[in-house]
C-alpha cells in the first residue's frame, strides 16, 4: 500500500514536471535562442530531466515525520541537485553559458521546481476539499 502511494506520488510528480519543463524549454528557447532548430530527439529531454528530478526527490522522503524546517531544508537540497543535474548535463554536452544565461537558467529551474510543488499542493487542496465534503456526510450518518 505504502509503495503504491509512493509510486503514484512519483508518477504524478513526473508528469507535472515533464509538462513544466516542456513549457520552460519552449519559453526559454523562443526568447533566447530563436534561431536554433532542434530534431525530434529534443522531445526526450523533458521526460529525461523530469525522471531524474523526480528520482532526486528521494532526499525529501523520510521514515520519520519531518518538521517543517527539515522539509524545507530537504527541498532546498532537492533543488540544488536538480540545478546541478541541468548544468552538469549541459556542461557535459559542451553548452557553456555566460553568467547572465546561467542566472536565467537557474531561476527558470527554480520556477519550475516551485510550480511542480505548487501543482501537487493544489491537487492536495482539491483532495482535501472532496474529503471535507464527505466528512460532513460521514458525521451526519454517525450522529
Amino acid at each position: 500500500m505504502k509503495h503504491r502511494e509512493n509510486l503514484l506520488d512519483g508518477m504524478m510528480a513526473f508528469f507535472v514536471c515533464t509538462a513544466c519543463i516542456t513549457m520552460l524549454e519552449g519559453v526559454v528557447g523562443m526568447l533566447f535562442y530563436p534561431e536554433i532548430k532542434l530534431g525530434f530527439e529534443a522531445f526526450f529531454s523533458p521526460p529525461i530531466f523530469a525522471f531524474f528530478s523526480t528520482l532526486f526527490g528521494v532526499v525529501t522522503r523520510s521514515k520519520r515525520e519531518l518538521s517543517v524546517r527539515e522539509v524545507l531544508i530537504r527541498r532546498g537540497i532537492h533543488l540544488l541537485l536538480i540545478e546541478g543535474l541541468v548544468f552538469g548535463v549541459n556542461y557535459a554536452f559542451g553548452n557553456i553559458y555566460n553568467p547572465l544565461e546561467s542566472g536565467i537558467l537557474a531561476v527558470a529551474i527554480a520556477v519550475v521546481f516551485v510550480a511542480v510543488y505548487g501543482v501537487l499542493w493544489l491537487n492536495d487542496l482539491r483532495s482535501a476539499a472532496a474529503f471535507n465534503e464527505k466528512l460532513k456526510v460521514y458525521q451526519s450518518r454517525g450522529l
Partner: protein
Amino acid sequence: MKVSIRKIRKKEEEQVIIECVEITSQIRDIHSYCMTKGMELSGLSGGQHMQRFPLEDVYYFEAVDEKVFAYTGKQVYEMKMRLYEAEHAYGENHFVRCSKSVVLNLMLLDSISPALNGRFFAHMKNGEKLMISRQYAQKIKQIVMGEEENET
C-alpha cells in the same frame, strides 16, 4: 422500524438490543452510535483524581513520553492504556490513527487542509490543529470517503 424503550432500575444493566433481519450499513451506524453514546472512560485528571467522562467528548488521544492522554474540550486525562489499545478499542467509535502519536475522533474533526510533503492538517472542532502524516492519510480518506476513494 419499531422502537421501544423499557425502563429498568439499575444503570449497569442498561443496554440496547437491535433486532434485524440483516446487518446493513444503517444497522451498523445505529450500532456505532449506541457504542459511542453509551461508553464512558476513566482517567486521571490533574494527575490526582480519577474521573469518568464520555468517549464522545474526546477529541483525540495522544502518546507523550510513554503516557497516553485523552483530550476533551475542557480537560486532559491521563489514561491507563497504550495508544494502539485506544486505536483498536475505539476504532468502531470513529477513532482513527492520524500520526505515530495521535488517534483522533473523526466525529469531532472539522476539516483538513494540505500541509507540506503530502501531509495534512486536521482542524478539530475545538480549534486545535493536529498533523495527519502521509502513511495514515490514505486510511483516513478510505474510512470517510469509502469505496469512492478506493477506486481512485
